[in-house]
Structure formats: C-alpha cells, structure tokens
C-alpha cells in the first residue's frame, strides 16, 4: 500500500489532521507527516501517490484508500494554486518531512552553507547584495548591507538573531517555515553567522506558536553538528506584539521589558548585549540558502520589479475562499491575489476592503486593486507591504470599527516608551467614538464663564475628523517605531475610503476644508 502523506502543520492539526492520521493508521495505512502545501482551504489535505484529497474527514478514510473519494483534487503538484507560484523560500512546502535531515539534504539542503564556507565571508555578503534581497519582516532594508555593517564592526562577540515574533494578524509564513522547513532557517542563520563572524544565535519565537517552538528545538538538536561551531537556541516571547520590533525584541532577549530603543545606535553596531547583531526575519533568513547556493543570487535578482527583487511569500487570509500561502515574484496585483487566486470572499459577498501588511497596514479599496506588489508602489499609495499578509473583508465589515480596533490594539500593545503612541492611541479611540457620535457638545472647561475664547458651540464631526488627522500625523512622524508610526495607516485609509461608515460624507464643510 502506498504511503499516506498528511501535513503536521499547526493549521492542519487545528483542522483535525492528527485524528485523520490516526484513522489512516488504524485502517492499516502507512502515514507520513509532512509540511503543508499551503492550500489552507483544503486542509487537512491527504496525499496518496501524488494525488490530493481535501478537506478530508475521518469519514473519507476508506474512500480515499480505495481511490473512490469525491474529495480528490488531482495531482497536488499540478494544482493551479501551486503551479502558478514561484516557490523559492517555500520550495519544500508539502514535499518533505520537517525534521528529516535526509529529506532536507536530498532537496538541496546545506548547499548554501557549504558554498558560503568555500567562498568565504566577503564573497558571501557580495552574493546577498547581488541578489537584491531586502528584509522580509516589513521594513525592506537591504539584507546584504546590514550584514556588511555587522561584518565590518570590530567586536569580540557578535550575534545573529532570527525575528520569529510573527504577530501580525493575517500572516503565517514564518510559522509555516518554522514548522515545515526548520533546517532552512538554521542554515540561513549559520550562513549569516559565517558571513559576519558570529558564534551565537537566537530565534525569538512568539509564545502563541508552541508547535513552532517544539519543531525548532528538535531541529536545532538534530543539526548541531552541521552548523558547529555556531550555536543557537530558541527563546519564547511572552505575548507582547511590540517585541516584533527589532530593538524591543533585543531588550526582551536580554530579559528586560520589551521597550523600543531609539536608533541610532543601529543594532548592527550595538545590538544584543551591546554587541554587533544581525536581526533578520524568518523569511529573509530562509531565502538565504537558495541565494548563496551556486547561481542563486543572479536567479533571485532576475525576479521581481524595480527595487523589489526576488519572490515574496504572500499570505492570503481572512474572508477569502482559497486562503493560503502564495509565493510569487514581486509585481503581482491585489486583483489577481484576491479574485483569481483567492477566489473572492468565503462568504460569497462582495469584497469591501483588503488589509495588506498586518494590523498596521492600510485598508485598500477595490478601486486600488491594480496596485503592483512592490515596496515603493505601496509606499507611494500610503500603504505598506509589511510581512505580506493580505486580509480580505466582505461588505459586512464596518470600517469605522476596524479603524477603532487599530487604535485600541495600538493602545493595548504600545510599549509605553514614546508619547505619540502611548497617549495618541488612547486619544484616537476617543476621537473615533466622537466622530461616530457626530461630534460633541461643549465640555466643562469650555462652558466656564471665564473661557471667553473657547468655542461657543460644540465640536462637529468635521472638526473631530480634522483632529484625528492631526493626531495621526503626530503619531506617524513622532513615534519611535512602526507600532505608533504605522497605526495611522489603517485608521486614515478607512476614514478616506469609507467615510460613510464613520457617518461622515468625506467632503469638506467649506472651501477651506474646515
């Protein structure tokens, strides 16, 4: 009997993959647990001789084994969702057993590290620069330049830190890699360590990802001899969203409050415990082995558009029919992602908005769906790519609710270090409430007889809108990090594109816009 392959990714398990695997074992089949293909609407997805069946339940076991199941989707590697992708970072997704060193080596594993050791640190960094790889965590800083800075810094001790604090709603690419291809992260870190001269590394994983922590720890133990003398360990976060910000993450690793540090000094010069530190996202580090392998850098640089080179693993999530992991070269439009690939909303209702880039990303109106996936194009449209999460909302979404939530979230997760974020978020929630209430009457102070210059009437909705815009301006330019600095994106985009949800016409009250 052929082998039955079922994903042991956390998402598949949450959808019942463990129970399904046990049922196949009971039925006498040999079950192999592999990583996820990333077609989440089909999870738990069962693969027998290359043919997929999903979403499978325990009731389908007998029919899948005798080949008569109506859940068959044909050959998985020929599925349009997979065929149309360009998978470099996710090349192994669905194909290998996550903790099998044999599978990893058979699919090109360790070739990048071997080549890096052969060509030496300087040439390795050159390759990364040639590839045009930019930090995949959100900021998009050129990875090779960061490495060069750390390599040139003179210090007895340097570190490589993998930022796996994937807190953005709508993102799961880091989690899938940690659970599905942990050796690739370890190899990427080992190459980084070799290139900059570090001997110790940390992977900072959020505590909401227990499966990822377990898989990484097992993978580190299995591959210790491969990456020696480089040593690395996993550290669990403790439920603070802001610790995905690199300086806050470093403080957390040091055992401090996860407060943001002012930059400069850059972590590349004074990072963990004051030592030069490479801090890269999971996706950045996992792209490295492919880039450093023979011919990888040129291939990577050929893909993409403008200054956004290579591929981006995009995560299609929220109210969408075909959600999952879609890795493709930069330049794809939202229209293709949401309609052609995602199949529209899961609810069957019209698409109202798409949030790209996590809780701090702008809400994008269907009118803007031709925007190409590119760092600069998004920035020009007052939006951001961030970590590549795409969350689809149908027409039942209340965008004023979402704007309020963005500010509430910022208030709850603010580290408290800078005022625009700590106070601004709270004031922002209050202003959104006042906009929705149509403004406010005169307050106690304004009503005092001696307050001659105070407004004689209350404050209308438009004044509150102007106040919110002012506040967002202050947060955007005055905050220390992206949490306070980017919270205005979802708020202002919601206000701009869906003023009716705020009970606001969107038109200025008079010619002066007041």
């Amino acid at each position, binding site marked *: 009997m052929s082998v039955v392959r079922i994903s042991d990714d956390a998402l598949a398990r949450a959808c019942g993959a463990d129970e399904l695997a046990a049922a196949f074992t009971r039925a006498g089949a040999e079950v192999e647990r592999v990583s996820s293909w990333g077609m989440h609407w089909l999870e738990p997805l069962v693969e027998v001789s290359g043919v997929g069946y999903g979403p499978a339940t325990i009731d389908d076991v007998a029919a899948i084994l005798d080949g008569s199941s109506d859940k068959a989707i044909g050959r998985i590697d020929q599925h349009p969702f997979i065929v149309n992708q360009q998978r470099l970072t996710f090349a192994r997704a669905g194909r290998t057993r996550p903790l099998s060193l044999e599978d990893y080596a058979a699919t090109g594993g360790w070739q990048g590290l071997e080549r890096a050791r052969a060509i030496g640190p300087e040439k390795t960094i050159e390759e990364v620069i040639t590839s045009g790889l930019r930090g995949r965590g959100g900021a998009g800083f050129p990875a090779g330049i960061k490495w060069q800075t750390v390599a040139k810094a003179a210090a007895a001790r340097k570190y490589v830190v993998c930022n796996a604090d994937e807190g953005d709603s709508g993102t799961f690419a880091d989690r899938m890699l940690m659970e599905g291809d942990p050796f690739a992260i370890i190899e990427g870190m080992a190459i980084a360590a070799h290139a900059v001269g570090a001997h110790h590394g940390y992977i900072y994983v959020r505590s909401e990802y227990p499966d990822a922590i377990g898989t990484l720890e097992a993978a580190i133990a299995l591959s210790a001899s491969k990456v020696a003398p480089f040593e690395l360990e996993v550290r669990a976060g403790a439920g603070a969203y802001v610790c995905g910000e690199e300086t806050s993450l470093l403080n957390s690793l040091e055992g401090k409050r996860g407060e943001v540090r002012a930059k400069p000094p850059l972590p590349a010069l004074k990072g963990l415990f004051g030592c030069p530190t490479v801090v890269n996202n999971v996706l950045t580090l996992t792209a490295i082995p492919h880039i450093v392998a023979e011919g990888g850098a040129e291939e990577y640089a050929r893909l993409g558009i403008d200054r956004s080179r290579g591929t981006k693993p995009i995560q299609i999530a929220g109210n969408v029919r075909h*959600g999952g992991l879609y890795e493709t070269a930069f330049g794809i439009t939202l229209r293709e992602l949401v309609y052609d690939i995602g199949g529209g909303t899961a609810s069957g209702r019209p698409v109202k908005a798409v949030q790209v880039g996590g809780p701090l990303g702008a809400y994008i109106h269907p009118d803007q769906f031709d925007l190409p996936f590119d760092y600069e194009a998004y920035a020009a449209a007052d939006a951001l790519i961030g970590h590549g999460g795409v969350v689809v909302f149908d027409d039942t979404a209340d965008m004023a609710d979402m704007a309020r939530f963005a500010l509430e979230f910022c208030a709850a997760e603010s580290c408290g270090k800078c005022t625009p974020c700590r106070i601004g978020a709270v004031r922002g929630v209050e202003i959104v409430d006042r906009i929705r209430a149509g403004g406010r009457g005169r307050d106690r102070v304004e009503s005092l007889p001696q307050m001659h210059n105070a407004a004689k009437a209350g404050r209308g909705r438009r004044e509150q809108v102007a106040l919110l815009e002012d506040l967002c301006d202050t947060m955007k330019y005055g905050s220390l990090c992206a949490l306070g600095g980017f919270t205005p994106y979802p708020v202002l985009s919601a206000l701009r594109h869906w003023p009716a949800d705020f009970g606001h016409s969107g038109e200025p009250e008079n010619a002066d816009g007041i």
Partner: protein
Amino acid sequence: MNREQALGEIIARHAGREGPLLPILHDVQRELGCVDDAVEATIAAELNLSRAEVHGVVSFYHDFHAEADDRPEVQVCRAEACKARGVEALIAGAEAAAGTRVRLSTVYCLGLCSVGPNARVGDRLHARLDTGSLKRLIESV
C-alpha cells in the same frame, strides 16, 4: 516539593544562560501558576536585579500573571483576520457558555488566519469555529 524549592530549581535550571529572566518567568508561570510578589523578590535577589526591574518585566508581558487562576482557559483570537471571518458574532455565545467556570481570554493572532475563527486551549489549536463548535469546546474544557 514546596514553592520555594520549585522556584530554586527553576532558577538553577537557567543559571549561566544569557538574559535568563524570561525563560525563568515562563517556567514559573507554568509550574507555579503565577508570578507573585514573593517570587519576584526571590528572582531579583538571585539574579542581582532590583525588585522593580523584575516587576517591570512581569507586568510588561501579557503571559505573566500576578495571581493564579485555576480555571481552565480558552483563548479566542479576535484580530483582524478572524474578525473578517466573523469571530465577533460568536463572542456573546462564548461568554454565556464560559460563565464564571471558564476563563475566556482574547489573543491577537494564532497564525491560522485563513481558517478562522480560531481558539487555543493549552497547546491545542482549534480552527473553523462556529457558534456551536466554540460552545462545545468551551463546555469540554
């Protein structure tokens, strides 16, 4: 083994690590159920930190609690992707099912954003929840 011994063992377990405070606090929270004043004082003395420094860290992170709560916990994700998939409509029913017996808490993202609404109980994740399945999950813990 009493609390002091357990705490001593946890601290000893992480001795010699760089930045040991968070790993220690995780183990304390898991094994002792909370990080209270007495624990903070002991950790501060052992790590040569001030109590304020330790308290600052404990109070900063959502995962650490000053008081133990023995009730079973169900964490429901209420971040954007799960909102888009209708989690808010499930909350009233979930609160009714939880009552005072179950601690119903909010978490921002479990990373299963294409199959929400999602919940976590211990280290087990649950996806594609609706009113009925979330109620059954809460009643089963």
